[in-house]
């Protein structure tokens, strides 16, 4: 019910992510990066998009060492749900909670574009309620996933053009257990018909249910 939306210096999408949680019937609470504990009653954690610490060094690298991340690790170890979107995905990879790393896009430029995604693994709590194909925007500069697909649980792939140049067209991965997931596209930008798509709602419904 209560989703902790982490906030780092440079987080940008925390408000739209929180709105998406609410739209899916959940309750969102912001948690500051310097906290060492998650609020009592936290049932799921959301790491939003943005440019934490200006993407300096490597995107997500500095944020992944923030005090709150130990609490996130414990939450994940106990089987709690953890979702990382865009920069949040980069943070989870840098923190070692998800396999692989996010490298500069093949275009070597920022890319902001509506894309289609195929659900590669409907077996996780996050992907269970998703349509087989989603229309969701990507917007990032370092979104090319690099890693070994054989020891990652690939949950989302780009349908059609592999815009960013990910290995195996990976758009999102989960840990083995499926309770930690990260994706580069922005489902929080796809929960409102006025914005052109509601395909992302299922992901937040999972958080809201947790």
């Amino acid at each position, binding site marked *: 019910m209560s989703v902790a939306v982490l906030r780092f210096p440079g987080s940008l999408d925390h408000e739209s992510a929180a709105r998406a949680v609410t739209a899916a019937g959940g309750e969102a609470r912001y948690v500051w990066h310097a906290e060492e504990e998650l609020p009592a009653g936290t049932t799921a954690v959301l790491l939003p998009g943005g440019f934490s610490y200006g993407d300096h*060094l490597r995107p997500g690298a500095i944020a992944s*060492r923030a005090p709150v991340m130990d609490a996130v690790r414990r939450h994940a170890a106990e089987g709690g749900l953890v979702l990382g979107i865009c920069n949040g995905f980069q943070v989870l990879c840098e923190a070692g909670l998800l396999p692989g*790393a996010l490298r500069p896009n093949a275009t070597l430029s920022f890319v902001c574009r509506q894309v289609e995604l195929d659900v590669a693994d409907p077996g996780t709590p996050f992907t269970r309620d998703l349509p087989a194909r989603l229309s969701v925007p990507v917007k990032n500069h370092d979104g*090319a996933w690099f*890693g070994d697909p054989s020891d990652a649980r690939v949950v989302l792939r780009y349908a059609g053009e592999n815009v960013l140049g990910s290995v195996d067209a990976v758009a999102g991965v989960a840990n083995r257990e499926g309770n930690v997931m990260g994706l580069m596209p922005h489902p929080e930008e796809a929960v409102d018909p006025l914005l052109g798509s509601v395909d992302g709602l299922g992901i937040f419904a999972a958080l809201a249910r947790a």
Partner: protein
Amino acid sequence: MTRVVVTVMPKEGVLDPQGQAVRGALGRLGFGDVTDVRIGRRIELQLTGDDPEGQARRMCDELLANALIEDYSVAVEG
């Protein structure tokens, strides 16, 4: 006060799109003799306290480099 230079380069086998792009651009500028370009990071640290090399290595392991995709080297310039 010691000056330590940390060099972080993309691992062999990790493709380096930036390096490739720069190589292409150099070619278009008429620099035909470039057969390879790799681009990495140079981090110059000013350190006080002892064992600067050890300190710098710990910084690399904890933050400055990502072992999955990058190799690092440390040089103490005294």
